């Protein structure tokens, strides 16, 4: 029996931090594209079904547009899709699953979708599905608890593979959230070690956004389309899992790449003005000068001369335009280089500019960061004004 295990689609994620609405739409669109890819892969690998281990939607109150688009994409999968609510789209009150609109769209666009909200075995032709839906945002009890009841598993057909479907954190792995998603809170904890693992053949997990093998029988598929900047090498989002399950055997799991957008993170320190070029070449290497396919989290440190600083600003403007999102944390300070210092403060013919510049240079070295920053910016403004006026002259 072959299935595709996926989770954490997080459809309708607002990407509110992307200011440009077109780019924001691109990021949102990419999440739907991942579903199309899964549909293609399902057909390509002739799987029996697609299992979605929660968080198909980013919010339990996803809007109608998202619902329609999601149902349409699921409808293209042409195999049964079994889905449980996760912590983002829990099955509690007010959740999307109770919306008339969702039910309408599901029946019309995705008749192959089965949203499972009950803890009871679903005996299918080729396997038994043991769903562990999350019916509230924070379940105090382990949603897999019901599987600890041996009588339930004992009552099942011994020949059919048993596949559990759950959403939550397992010990040692918690879905660390981005500081921008801090409002979403901690996930629900799953105690897999308490489960009669020998009586189960595969546990399809959701919540952790990277592919993760918890044990030979229990895997996180991760999100098919990354939705945040990478959290280290061990976190590998952007895949779905092709799983072959047999009763009484360990499953065969293969990763299928599904991501379309590239999320990068870079830290860079300027030690001299020429480092700006180095930064540019590194970023070009990373993004291949693509447009609207990358998201970059860039942290800059160090200091640059006034002119270099202005060039950096221009470069960053260009990056903002090329990237779907440039998340910039710049702690770069403006420190005029010697030539600039001379140009500003050694103007015998312009005593006023010289004396103002000298004062600003002095203040930019102040211990008071506010004063220093203000002075640096003022210095840059002065520098720019001088250049402007000179060029006019």
């Amino acid at each position, binding site marked *: 029996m072959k299935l595709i295990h996926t989770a954490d689609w997080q459809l*309708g994620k*607002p990407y*509110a*931090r992307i*200011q440009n609405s077109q780019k924001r739409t691109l990021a949102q669109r990419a999440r739907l594209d991942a579903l199309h890819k899964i549909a293609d892969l399902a057909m390509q690998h002739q799987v029996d079904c697609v299992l979605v281990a929660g968080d198909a939607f*980013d*919010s*339990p*109150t*996803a*809007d*109608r547009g*998202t*619902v329609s688009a999601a149902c349409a994409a699921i409808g293209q999968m042409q195999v049964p899709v079994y889905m449980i609510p996760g912590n983002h789209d829990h099955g*509690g*009150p*007010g*959740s*999307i699953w*109770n*919306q*008339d*609109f*969702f039910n309408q769209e599901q029946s019309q666009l995705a008749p192959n979708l089965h949203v499972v909200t009950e803890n009871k075995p679903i005996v299918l032709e080729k396997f038994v599905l043991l769903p562990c839906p999350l019916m*509230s*945002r924070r379940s105090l009890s382990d949603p897999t608890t019901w599987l600890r009841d041996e009588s339930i598993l004992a009552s099942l057909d011994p020949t059919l593979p048993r596949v559990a479907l759950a959403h939550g954190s397992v010990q040692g792995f918690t879905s660390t959230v981005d500081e*921008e998603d801090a*409002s979403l809170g901690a996930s629900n904890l799953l105690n897999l070690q308490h489960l009669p693992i020998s009586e189960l053949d595969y546990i399809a997990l959701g919540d952790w956004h990277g592919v993760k093998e918890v044990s030979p029988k229990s895997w996180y598929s991760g999100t098919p389309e990354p939705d945040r900047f990478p959290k280290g090498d061990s976190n590998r989002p952007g895949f779905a899992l092709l799983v072959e399950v047999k009763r009484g055997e360990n499953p065969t799991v293969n990763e299928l790449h599904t991501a379309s957008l590239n999320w990068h993170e870079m830290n860079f320190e300027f030690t001299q003005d020429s480092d700006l070029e180095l930064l540019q070449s590194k970023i070009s290497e990373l993004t291949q000068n693509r447009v609207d396919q990358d998201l970059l989290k860039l942290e800059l440190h160090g200091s640059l001369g006034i002119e270099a600083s202005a060039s950096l600003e221009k470069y960053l403007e260009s990056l903002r335009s090329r990237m779907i999102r440039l998340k910039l944390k710049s702690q770069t300070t403006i420190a005029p280089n010697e030539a600039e210092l001379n140009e500003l403060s050694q*103007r015998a*013919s*312009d*005593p*006023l*500019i010289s*004396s*103002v510049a000298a*004062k*600003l240079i002095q*203040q930019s070295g102040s211990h008071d960061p506010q004063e220093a*920053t*203000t*002075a640096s*910016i*003022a210095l*840059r*403004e*002065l520098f720019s*004004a*001088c250049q*402007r*006026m*000179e060029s*006019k*002259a």
Partner: protein
Amino acid sequence: MKLLSATVSHYRIHKSTKLEFDPSRTLVGGPNESGKSTFAEALHRGLFLKSRITGAALEDMKSTVHVGAPGVEIYFESGSNQYRLVKVFQGQSGSTQLTEIGGESWKDEAAESKLNELLGVDDVGGGRNILERLKNQWGHLWVWQGESGSHPSQHVAQENSNLIQRLQSEGAAAVLQSALDTAVADWIETRYSEHFTKGGKQKAGSDLASAQEEERQAYEDFHKAEERLKRLEQAIQNFEQSETGIMDQEKALVDILSQKKISQERIHQLESLQNDRQQKAEQQQRASQQLELFDQVHKKIESLKINRDEVSKALAPESHKLEDVRKSLDASDQAILSASRQHETALEHTRNARLRFDWIQSWKNLLNQKSQLAQLLKRQTQAKQLKDQVRVVKEELQQLPDLTDSMVQKLRKIESRYEASKAVVESMAARIEIKQADLKVTLDGKLIQPGAQQTISESTELQIGDAVIIQLHPGGGGSLTEAREKSQQLKNELAEAFDKAGIQSIEKANEAAIRRTQLIQKLEHLEEQLKPLDDGDLEDDIAQLESNIQVSESELNRRREKLKDEKLPDDSDQESLKSLESDARETLDQVEMKENEFRRELEMARQKKNSITEQLTQLENHIRQREVKLQDLKTEIKVLEETHGNLEKRQSGLETARQEKQELDTELAELSARLNSMQPDLLRSELERLHRAEDITRKTIQDLRDRRAESKALCEYDGSNDPQMEFETAHARLAESRENLERENLRAGAIQKLTELFRSEKETLSSQLSQPLADRISIYLRALFGAGANAVVKFEGQEFQGIQLYRPGQVGAFDFSELSGGTREQVAAAVRLAVAELLACDHDNSLPIVFDDAFAYSDPDRVQSLQCMLDLAANRGLQIIILTCNPSDYALLGTEVRSFKTTENTQSPSR
């Protein structure tokens, strides 16, 4: 440069006026309109105005009184040379000649050019407004009349570049800001004005203000989105809490219901035991009652027997006493009989005595009645006589006419009136007397016999025979007729009155009336006598008395009949009757006394009998009651013994009942102990508690269900929006707007900092640059205001902008505009002197400075200081030229007063 002399020709009022200048102090005096200002103007124009000037400027100079072109000749010293300048203003024919004494000479354009070079000024040209522009030439050195108090900056403007140059060369560190400095500073100011108002406040519409507004809006949106999300989350939380609560409460309810069931079973058990105890208690009560009944009956029978014996015992003496009483009753009957007989005898005696007494009384009464009758009969006879007399009088009275005195009076009056009227008629009437007649004489047809007299009182026809008829008319005319009619009327009236009274004459009437009165008086007298004799009842009284006498007689007879056995007098008079009556009374009193005595005895005997009878009755009743009681007791004892058996049987029954009760007491105690051990109060309160707990839990569950339903309704979204997404978007927008605001704040801060720095540095530069000027001004000011006076000069860019004055004894700086008129002209003079002094460096350290009536507003007190200042300027190398109409004000300057000299040469200065 020093002026040596000047001659003005054909210039308005001046025909040819010369003035020689002192190298240091020239004081020119002269009254108003003497041409001082014109001279000063001509001198200025001589130095700076082109000689070929035309138009209004030329016309302005021409004299209306002197013929010839206006001209000026000036001797001056520049460098080490002396020069003679001659200008003739004659339009296109005008000429300028400049001659270095003992040296080169220049004409016209060359002369003008050389002159400008020597004076250090630019060519002012000609054209429009030339006179205005001309004033700026050496404007700082020429204090025109009426302009001494104006701001010094405007007079210095023309010399700014020279001044700056001079200042720069003066101050060691002083540097002038460059054009770039100015451009950048201006640009920064422009940027500043985009962000801030002149007052330094943030400007509406600036980037910063927009960023703040955006941030505010973003915060508001965020707050709303957060509220919406919080509401949703709160609703979800409420729902979840309600759900958990419902589960907990339902679990608790199951627990409560199970406890309640146990409690109810125990209560049931308790009730069953209580029922048993109730039944047992009832049995015990019945046994107790039985025992008590047995005991009571036994005690009652015994008590009845004692009672019976006591009654029986008490009955014997009472029977004996009864016998005694009965005997006493018989004795009392005998006593009554005896007393009764005595009383009857006495009663008989009394009756007889009373009969006798009554008979005497009757007799006495009869005699009295008879005596009364005799008196009445006597009165009757007298009355009869009187009545007869009355009748006679009344009969006579009846026959008399019914006339009263008043009626007679009235008749008299009529009669006398009639008599009077008759006398009147007779006096008026004619009387005919037939003495003799042969013929039948008739009067009104009535035959009159001879001798007969006839009175005629009216028109009467007298016929004598058949042939003679005489109509007689008595005298008096109508009055006679009237008198006769009246007389007739009175006659008729009198006759009628007589008829009515039934009399014939007045005399008769009078008599009748008198008689009538007499009779009435007699009648009244008789009736007066009759009244005491017979009031009308006399007959009845007599009849009544006669009848009474008959009754009394019959009663007397009857009484006599009863006393027929007694010997009694048959007749008696009153006296003997009295004696009889007295005896009878005495006898009656005696027998009555006796009778009363016996009656009392009888009464006493009867009372005694009654008392004995009563005693007997009481005793008999008492004995009867005792006997009844005894019988009752006996019956009761008998009945009780028949019912409850004899003593032995009773005692046995009593014992059995006692045992039965004792057994029941024990059983009841056991049951009570078991019941108490179950703590019934606690059991019941426990059940109540469980009932309460159940109610509360059910209510809580219902409340939670309501809350859950309410929360669920709040949670239900139709998908038209996503609160989570809206919140995140709003949150991101807020963060962005804050970042932007921070950027704008930094930028605005930087602009502000730059502006402040530029301003302060400019000021520093300005103050460095202007310090030499300020120092020089201060030197002059101190001469005016004292040692503490100081000046601060403001330069903006390359321009002298203004001055602030610090005065000794006054706090703070004063702007020029804040000064009084007098002080203004003095300070302006100080500035001019300082500037002149500075610029004099390029003019052999000397420049002339002309004050034309320049201190018009200064106080006399200040004039002395002014002279000090002017003298100081002269000492420092300046050539002070003062034109005044009050030269005495400058007496302390220490220079002679000069006046204009009129030269002989009336021609224009020669070329």
